[in-house]
């Protein structure tokens, strides 16, 4: 999955599940926790959604708190986790 595909996946999920009624534009720069768009429960749901759709496991131990809650940073973390995982055996 490319970064653009992953970001689209994340943005669409957030639009469908955000915790605010504001009609905010969701982009790569959108911060999700401090703005109230998602809470920690929503974040858990989003991570499970990414993991199931992209077939990867996000390594939260590697996450930078400053980037984790921003759409682009979360996508970067997911792709970094994907790259670090061993290829499935044929």
């Amino acid at each position: 999955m490319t970064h653009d595909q992953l970001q689209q996946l994340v943005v669409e999920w957030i639009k469908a599940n955000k915790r605010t009624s504001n009609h905010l534009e969701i982009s790569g720069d959108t911060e999700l926790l401090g703005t109230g768009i998602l809470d920690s429960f929503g974040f858990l749901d989003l991570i499970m959604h990414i993991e199931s759709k992209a077939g990867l496991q996000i390594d939260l131990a590697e996450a930078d708190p400053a980037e984790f809650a921003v759409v682009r940073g979360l996508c970067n973390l997911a792709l970094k986790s994907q790259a670090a995982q061993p290829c499935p055996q044929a």
Partner: protein
Amino acid sequence: MSTGVRTVEARNPIVETYSRLAREYDEEANFLSCWGRASARALSAIRLRDDYSVIADVGCGTGRALQALASTAPPHTQFIGIDPAENMCRIAAEKAAANKAVQIRLGAFEKIPLETASVDYLYSILAFHWVTDPAASVAEIARVLKPNGEMDLFFIGRDNGREFIQKTSAIFLKYMGPALLLDSARLRKQLTREAALQLFSTAFASPRLSVEESLTTYYDTLEGHWSWWVRVEGHFVKIPQEKKTACDREVREALQSLAGPRGIPYTIHELHVKLRRPDPPH
């Protein structure tokens, strides 16, 4: 009468925290807090039938609701309070020492220390959201209730405390990091009304079963709200001690920024799962 408290093996940070803070639980500030008021409201909604023989309070804490209900129930009614926090059980057992109708047992929703089909009425006030295994807990409730048993469970729902969460999530992310923050969220099972209905429908059928929800905003001072913060401290036990003071300071400032003319708001999203006997045939 049995007021002996036996040790259970399974422990989690929430149970440990509640047990450690058990003596503070009955302080006046806690009763006056939004949680004290919500608990009193839930208690006032409970109606006991005269034909109940065995009543169970799961997550009984220090036994406050048990004592209130037992004081007005018919003498044949047996009350059993159950809680996973050892020190909560000790206090509840001390209070029950003079009342032969009340027993206290160490246990939890996931493994209720009661015989199958032995309970006429089971209630719980603001405890079910702490379960570690919701499906197993519902199965246990169904096991211990008699076929026509009744139930009132009050617990917090998905949208609880939105004001505080919105103001403090970024602060906790900063001090806990993503992994610990999400671990702490996993400790609570905050369900939507629809998810709760689906969960309890696995064991109980409509129309006996219903789930109601309410959103009630409570206003208080910063110190008033802080008095119950001890109850959620279990979430944050993994914040390093050297960071905790700074984290507390930032959280307090964030909560104070919510203050309006009526005080600092906190909205409790409460779910009320009811199970009633079927209506008698006409």
